[in-house]
């Protein structure tokens, strides 16, 4: 199984699983590219090899939080949409935060929705990701269907503009 990810810098990362505890990683970056391999040692430590050098990485998944420790220290990672949800104002649309498959579509154009209603569910890497309405409103357009493969950042549901107060 191959998976592909892109980040802000434009780096494209491709991952191919080699069994349960080993992966091949390829990055086509804007200013870097690498071929690497990752494996999980029996004690749970991940060993990342790139440019012929192997470095340990500690990764611990705890619900919606992931902890990593490298030579740089410990970092805490959170689900990305959690940030978008609180940082964003009253957005007019919802989009998948990642590339994935649409598994549920709950609304159609013309439906009235309330903030927090789950409009679409996207699945990626066996993880279901509910996408909720950012505000109360009326659905103007649904541009996906169950089974579609969608890219991150592309609008899936658009709400009608808010009426001027």
């Amino acid at each position, binding site marked *: 199984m191959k*998976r592909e*990810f*892109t*980040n*802000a*810098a434009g*780096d494209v990362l491709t*991952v191919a699983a080699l069994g349960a505890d080993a*992966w091949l*990683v390829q*990055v086509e*970056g804007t200013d*870097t*590219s*690498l071929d*690497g391999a*990752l494996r*999980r040692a029996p004690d749970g430590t*991940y060993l*990342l090899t*790139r440019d012929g050098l192997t*470095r340990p*990485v*500690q*990764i*611990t*998944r*705890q619900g*919606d*939080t*992931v*902890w*990593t*420790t*490298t*030579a*740089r*220290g*410990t*970092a*805490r*990672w*959170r*689900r*990305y*949409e*959690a*940030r*978008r*949800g*609180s*940082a964003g104002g009253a957005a007019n649309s919802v*989009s998948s*935060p*990642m590339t994935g498959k649409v598994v549920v579509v709950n609304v159609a154009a013309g439906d009235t929705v309330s903030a927090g209603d789950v409009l679409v569910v996207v699945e990626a*890497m066996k*993880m279901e990701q509910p996408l909720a309405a950012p505000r109360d409103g009326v659905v103007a357009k649904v541009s996906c269907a169950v089974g579609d493969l969608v*890219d*991150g*950042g592309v609008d899936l549901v658009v709400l009608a503009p808010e009426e001027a107060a």
Partner: protein
Amino acid sequence: MSTATQHQAGVTGPVTRVLIANRGEIAARVARACKVLGVESVGVYSEADADARHVRMCDVAVPIGPAAAAESYLVPERILEAARRSGADAVHPGYGFLSENMAFARAVIDAGLTWIGPPPAAIGGLEGKTDAKAVAEAAGVPVAPAERLTDLSEAGLLAAAQRVGYPVLVKPEHGGGGKGMQRVDAPETLVAAVAAARRIAKAAFSSDALFLERYVERARHVEVQVIADAHGDVRHCFERECSLQRRHQKVVEEAPCAALSESERAAICESGRAFAAQVGYVGAGTVEFLFDPVRREHYFLEMNTRLQVEHPVTELVSGVDLVLTQLRVARGERLAEQPAFASAGQLRGHAVEVRVYAEDPASGYMPQVGTLARVQWPTGPFVRVDTGYDEGDAVGMHYDPMLAKVIAWGADRGEAIDRLVAALRETVIHGVVTNLPMLLDVLQRPEVRAAEVDTGSLGRWYGDKGPGLDDGPGDEGTKSGGTSGPDADAWVALAAAGHGGPWAHGGGGVSTRDAGPAPSDPWTTLSGRRFGPAGGAA
């Protein structure tokens, strides 16, 4: 103070099954000493600690009530009932909780048990600070120049301040917590400061009685470890320095104090020993001093009549197992019969300890709770870890958030610090935010390397917040996640290991990493942002 003969009752006796009236790392520490001595250990635990490490380490353990310490660890009757039920014949209080509660010590002795601590009279007698100062003077131990303000005329105040010596601290005689205290540097501001302090003291403590005390600039907190047997043999095990404190909470502790010359060390250690001898002390205790680095003088502060959190640094440089010695003293053994005290004490090398807390320095040291999903304590030569937590344990909200003490020894101070830095870098704690980044930052500061620290250092360097998660030393903070970002390995491994996604950094408030990801960026750093329902520490 009472005489030495009165002190025998209850503080020596049978020690074959020791109830440890504490939790966490200190309970585990005492359980270890029991194993070394070949006696049984009895743990106690609240509902929150049913699976705790100290319960797992003790031979047997007894439940003592609800999670709240006030309903369990702090209730003398519950501890005594646990002793009865388990057939314990001795009680070790650890530190904190009931360790300096005179009534509890008396109750233990009245129940016919051996109290592994100082005579209750010594606990009570040293609680009142003015009494303790009188004892110090009687023992020939220097106290900071101080004077009760009786003549409140301008001339009287100026004369008193002149005798004490500027800068002076104006202090309410009753009350505490620093309220109403004012520093005065010169005669011009004295009268106004005294008037203000009287008003505040009157309002807060219903008494406007004040005294003046010498204010020690760049004061260093130096404390002398003492231990005495029940036969009048009082020894010191050298001194510790604990100047790196945050709001009176010690963060870094070391032994010996790097600021002292050999003769100053001999003088301050003898002061500590003399004070303990004066009060007929038995067991382990600590005599605290302020050291004035300008006048090169030490002043008595107070005596702590218990084992201290930071006792390991003393153990490493003195070769004395303090907890084991406490147990032996309680059995009535003489210090002179023990190998560590057979010859005159020798100071060996240097030891430094840091306290690893479940707290977030970047958010103003907020205590953190959670489950320790992954824990890797450091190992290796000359490194010691005293902890109450293993991987999988829960860190709750009911008790002190200290996870562990990490201690390193070196032939000299620099080597000890190098070892400690390496040990902290080896430490992995996933599941709760810790102060590890701050500890690493502190240990690598040039002032710390040069031993130029005082009790105000941490406050001056960091203010109310410290370096938090994901702000490790040497982090250039170039750009958000990705292969050229500062934590490319984490980014790549996280993605490749297939832990779902996308993920964003939610580090502390002082991370130098670049924020501002594009909306579609799956893995990115989000420094200094707290966000969303999943955000913030649990």
